[in-house]
């Protein structure tokens, strides 16, 4: 549920390993990345932000795959319409 927004990790706070500065469309905020201690975050990684915490690291490969599927859908749209029209003819 709950509002989670993707943001890019800019840098970690030098004396506080749990905290990182993230960027969301030009807006910056310090968030707690303690929940991702197993993920070995680096600047440039994207994370899902919720109430000041990073909940999950965004898997760019999966994102690309998801977009590819959607691209495929878009390109096949015209064919799909044609197929739909054909299948309605009895």
């Amino acid at each position, binding site marked *: 549920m709950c509002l*989670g927004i993707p943001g890019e990790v800019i840098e970690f706070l030098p004396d506080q390993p749990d905290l990182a500065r993230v960027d969301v469309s030009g807006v910056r905020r310090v968030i707690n990345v303690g*929940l991702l201690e197993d993920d070995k975050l680096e600047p440039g990684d994207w994370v899902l932000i919720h109430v000041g915490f990073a909940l*999950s690291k965004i898997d760019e490969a999966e994102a690309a795959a998801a977009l590819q599927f959607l*691209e495929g859908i878009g390109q096949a749209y015209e064919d799909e319409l044609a197929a739909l029209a054909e299948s309605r003819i009895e």
Partner: protein
Amino acid sequence: MKFVDEFRDADKAHALAARITALCEPGRQYKLMEVCGGHTHTIYKHGLEDYLPEQVTLVHGPGCPVCVIPMGRVDDAMALASDPDVIMTSFGDMMRVPGSNGSFFDAKARGTDIRMVYSPLDSLKIARQNPDKRVVFMAIGFETTAPSTAMTVLRAAAEGLPNFSVFCNHVTIIPAIKAILDSPDLRLDGFIGPGHVSTVIGCRPYEFIARDYGKPVVVAGFEPLDILQSIYMLMLQLSKGTSTVENQYSRVVPWDGNPVALRAIGQTMELRPYFEWRGLGFISHSALAVREEYARFDAERLFSVPGVRVADPKACQCGEVLKGVLKPWECKVFGTACTPETPIGTCMVSPEGACAAYYNYGRLTRQRVREASPS
């Protein structure tokens, strides 16, 4: 905005909608429940239902953690806040939830020190800045938010903060889904699974839905294309007669969830034997409380809360709306006695509540005729 805009493309939406339509068997009605309030919000905000064929109905489930808090618990929170030594901190969503004597907002007007925060960590800052006051954080949310509360408690413990505690109202999603599945007056074909809860608990907890109840589940993201794609994936399963759990939101949701988050919750919290859900009654093992070891951060142990039960008003049909049996406009008091300005039931309180969402966004969405009957 990266990872957001790409999933809001209208052309791809048309393509998905065409595929969904193509999968509809003639004469068959499909009822899909989106459990999560955030999904309801997206559906209305982007006018998603305009894309769906008439045969596919989206039913709004109980996934709004603010919506399900009973009036009695809100009264308890207000009692806590009214203590002159207490500064209560809360998310914005809670500010307008009505108790027996108004909401946090109204209490603020009467002089109660209630402050809105964006993160539970902000409460720690307020506690440090106000050593002579006791800060109580109103913790709400499903498993999405529980880890943040847990980490905040752990941080407070590490710092030895003496004046911070949590009034814990976290609820868990699985018992609510089960209550719906076991409901005799409901017939659903599939579930759009909660996206952000799943980043914490993973996808395995939904397997019982597919295995024992034979309903497919697709864990979905929050952009409009995510939801449309998830509906398409559900329709594909229904057309093949399969029922499995799939993860559409794989760019964010790991199949096994977040072990660090689960450990943090497990360390600081435990399941209550039962908890009352607005409109759904008592559900066992459906909510979290602070563990004994962290008692010094548990507002329920530190303060005495009245604990009075306040009934759902007889005319309030939130329960049926939450279960997806009624559409918002079918509730007898929708739009008149119960409005966003004067919300009776919590379905109207939070913008995610099915009724508020419909009132604010959906009134003129469809020109087409929809039948009222739930089956």
